[in-house]
């Protein structure tokens, strides 16, 4: 649920906890990926109906993310876990600090867009989001830099099974200037594809236990249902603070998990 609200996926919490409890990182990764995919699946109808998710942007950023996730998943069986957890902690901490320190509003409400439905604009990486102060038009900035960062998110997902949403949402928000709720919903959509692609690779490696997947997925879908409904009602600043604090907590958990 927390993962859907913040758009970073619950696996970024679950996987470090499993590793802390003694589960091998290679076994924890597929469980995390199933959780991410399940949460994205259950959150999808509500996020699409509300007009929060930008599918064109999600697909564009997902191309480098999925490609990187596939390569990372293929090599993950050869990567030592300790250094990876430290790197993950650094990324999560940096993203959390950036989210708390930068309060600038990139996309102010514009009353002249009041007649526009809250949706993406066909043929562009822009759209309108229905914010508390009125309609908020936006357009993705610095797309090439965002795509490079998304490849990093995919690498994190393929290596660790954490989905990479905790990187994608801050990247969309701070680099591409996407409103936080749109970024969170689009990240959930995009991360669901990353997770499904990664799961295909893990299954090919014989690392997916169907019964463990069902157990993780049941919780992931239930959490996604609740999270998507809560996400639609929260103020952007609240979502931003919750996400940032969660990222800092995640960093601490990752360090403790060593």
């Amino acid at each position, binding site marked *: 649920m927390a993962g859907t609200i913040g758009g970073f996926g619950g696996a970024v919490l679950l996987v470090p906890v499993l590793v802390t409890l003694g589960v091998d990182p290679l076994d924890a990764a597929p469980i995390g990926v199933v959780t991410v995919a*399940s949460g994205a699946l259950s959150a999808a109808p509500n996020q699409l109906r509300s007009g929060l998710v930008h599918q064109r942007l999600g697909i564009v950023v997902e191309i480098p993310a999925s490609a990187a996730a*596939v390569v990372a998943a293929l090599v993950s069986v050869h990567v030592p876990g300790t250094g990876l957890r430290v790197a993950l902690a650094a990324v999560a901490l940096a993203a959390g600090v950036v989210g708390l320190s930068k309060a600038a509003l990139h996309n102010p409400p514009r009353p002249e867009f009041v007649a*526009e439905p809250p949706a*993406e604009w*066909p043929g562009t990486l822009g759209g309108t989001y229905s914010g508390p102060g009125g309609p908020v038009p936006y357009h993705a900035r610095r797309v090439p830099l965002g795509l490079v960062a998304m490849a990093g998110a995919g690498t994190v997902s393929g290596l660790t099974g954490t989905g990479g949403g905790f990187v994608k949402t801050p990247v969309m928000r701070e680099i591409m200037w996407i409103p936080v709720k749109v970024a969170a919903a689009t990240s959930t959509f995009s991360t669901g594809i990353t997770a499904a692609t990664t799961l295909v690779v893990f*299954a090919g490696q014989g690392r997916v236990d169907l019964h463990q997947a069902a157990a993780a997925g049941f919780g992931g879908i239930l959490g996604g*249902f609740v999270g998507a409904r809560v996400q639609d009602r929260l103020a952007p600043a609240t979502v931003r603070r919750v996400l940032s604090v969660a990222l800092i907590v995640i960093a601490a958990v990752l360090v403790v998990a060593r």
Partner: protein
Amino acid sequence: MSVHDGPAPHPLVGRQRLLVAALQIASWVGLAAAFVGLVGPGEVRDLAAGVFVGVVVGTPFGRLVWLMVRWIRRGDPRFAVAAGALLTVVALAASTAWW
């Protein structure tokens, strides 16, 4: 590019009711399959867990195909190509991992 440079929004944007309905059905089927895969008896449990994984993996890819076809039909070729490119990445991943 500033926010003012975007084209006028299409009057039908956001009305993807068929996709929303399909995603809702997939979610409930996935939830039911996961539950049976968790507590069901014997072979039914195995089958349900397999169905669950199939739904979780297949739904996002089905959504991609749906969007690609929609954008082709609605004259949005750039993003149809993007969706096709992403599906190609997935196909290559599957072939590489299962080869």
